[in-house]
């Protein structure tokens, strides 16, 4: 009886989530509002928007899918290299490059996902780790195509839609990346409220039970892997188009680690966690590295150790925990008196 009631409750809640509330657009608006602080912050805001897209894609896998990967930068890098190589060879239309980057990343994630998703836990982790070192080594050796260790130079992005030049101040880059972010955010947000999204969460919570109620676990997870790879490719392509350079570190264990840290900082398994993580991370990086760029990694590492030990739900989790906790309510009610 209670089980049915509970299921009904969960289902109603899930259905409610299908409708977007206006408040859900606040994080997106916050990113859009960056120019208020001055034009010098546009490149930072652009970077934030790109990393939110990357972080959202990782959140699909790690947060919602429960698939812990330390090789997600493979798809970011593939998107970046695809779009970068196209535009270094004269095909510099941004939207085509974006689509090509996304397509290559999606195909790669289909191939890689079909392999790595056959295993679980530590072995899965190891395969993703190997894949990132393998791809970086391939990019490193294919110097004719990628520029190797020196990075890919000669990327020149043509005007967006043939109208908007990518200017020195980064206005076009900012508008472009925020627009892409808005599309990706809506897509992810709505996807997670569909039966597909709910089944993904069900698989994460209890794989066996999910397969018992008839969810095709393998193909659902593979589909999720492809979507996540595609979105990471979008982020990578954006990055290469806007910075007009692709570094060998676009595929790398450090980047995989950093994006995982951003996600954990914001709160994995929460769409808005994927927003706040990169915002806090990149702003903190901007501030700390002004004092001492090398020591920034010290604060970053400390930050993540503290988050893991004391705030497992990340900042968003912490906020929602504080919001629910009785102490805050008590304080609020005392204030009212």
């Amino acid at each position, binding site marked *: 009886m209670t089980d049915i009631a509970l299921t009904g409750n969960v289902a109603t809640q899930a259905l409610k989530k299908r409708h977007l509330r206006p408040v859900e657009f606040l994080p997106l608006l916050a990113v859009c509002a960056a120019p208020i602080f001055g034009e010098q912050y546009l490149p930072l805001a652009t970077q934030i928007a790109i990393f939110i897209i990357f972080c959202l894609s990782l959140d699909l896998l790690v947060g919602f899918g429960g698939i812990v990967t330390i090789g997600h930068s493979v798809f970011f890098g593939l998107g970046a290299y695809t779009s970068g190589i196209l535009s270094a060879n004269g095909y510099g239309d941004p939207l085509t490059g974006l689509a090509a980057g996304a397509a290559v990343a999606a195909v790669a994630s289909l191939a890689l996902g079909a392999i790595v998703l056959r295993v679980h836990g530590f072995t899965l982790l190891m395969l993703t*780790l190997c894949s990132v070192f393998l791809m970086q080594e391939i990019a490193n050796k294919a110097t004719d195509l990628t520029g190797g260790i020196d990075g890919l130079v000669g990327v020149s992005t043509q005007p967006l839609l043939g109208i908007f030049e990518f200017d020195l101040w980064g206005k076009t880059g900012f508008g472009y990346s925020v627009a892409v972010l808005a599309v990706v955010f809506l897509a992810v947000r709505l996807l997670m409220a569909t039966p597909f999204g709910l089944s993904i969460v069900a698989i994460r919570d209890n794989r066996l039970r999910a397969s018992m109620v008839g969810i095709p676990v393998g193909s659902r997870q593979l589909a999720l892997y492809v979507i996540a790879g595609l979105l990471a490719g979008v982020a990578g392509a954006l990055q290469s188009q806007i910075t007009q350079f692709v570094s060998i570190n676009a595929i790398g264990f450090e980047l995989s680690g950093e994006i995982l840290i951003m996600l954990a900082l914001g709160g994995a398994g929460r769409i808005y966690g994927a927003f706040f993580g990169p915002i806090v991370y990149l702003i903190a990086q901007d501030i700390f590295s002004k004092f001492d760029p090398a020591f920034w990694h010290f604060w970053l*590492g400390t930050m993540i150790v503290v988050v893991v030990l004391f705030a497992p739900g990340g900042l968003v989790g912490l906020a929602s925990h504080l919001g629910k906790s009785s102490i805050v309510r008590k304080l609020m009610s005392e204030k009212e008196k």
Partner: protein
Amino acid sequence: MDIVLSILIHSVAFTALLYLISVGLSVTMGLMGFVNLAHGVFAMVGGYVTATLITAVHLPWWAAIALTPFIVSGIGVVVEKVLYSRLYGKAELDQVLFSIGLLFVASAVAQELYGPLLIQIPMPASLLEPIQVLGVSTSSYKLVLVAVGASVALAVLYALERTTLGAMIRAAVENRTMAEGLGLNTSLLFSGTFALGTGLAALGGAIGAELFPITPAYGFVYLVYFMIVVAIAGLGTVRGAFIASFLVALISTISAYFLPEYGTIVLFAGVFLLLLVRPQGLFGRVS
């Protein structure tokens, strides 16, 4: 013939280095199921401690190498008690994040203290002189590496397979709940194993600095080698770690010799394939 022999000598030296650093990781990961990506940090710390002991305290190379594992074991115990132990049994993601955080912190501290470039561990000149082994020219350094690696391997193997303490560790790896049920203090056991593992890693880092140079990025750059050894061996097997170290060393050396351009690609692709066929590793048990 000479080529075969020099490949073999180099492989064996490389095996010693990989084994020294990875064996502790294999046992601790098998014991506590802790995904520790930061193990290489202790090898790096070993390198820095040895260099400091030689240049600042003016100890001879041998003494510095011998003292380093004890110092780093001490650090290991503290880190284990204060930080690692809080995350036992927690989600894999938390452990991964925590150890990546530790990697970043260690690399930043190393860079702050010793600068971004690689540091030299001054070795006695006698170790660097070329000597002839079975008609092949090599350095006595490699032979020292092999000797230390081999004696540690034998000691660890003996300790694990023939002593009561070893039996306790194997029991805890096999079935922790059952071992606790029989009255074993697994958390003490784990602290001890962790200390031993970090000490051996420090020894490997210090003595192997000619093969894996000590830089602040050490933990990131060589992480994949240690993880590969553990993964293809299977968690918690000491013999497996030895054979896996040898395989990784042999494949890297051979491919570096004949396919210098694609050496690492061959290695990573090989591991990828192997883990697909045997997800539990060569000697691991299916859980």
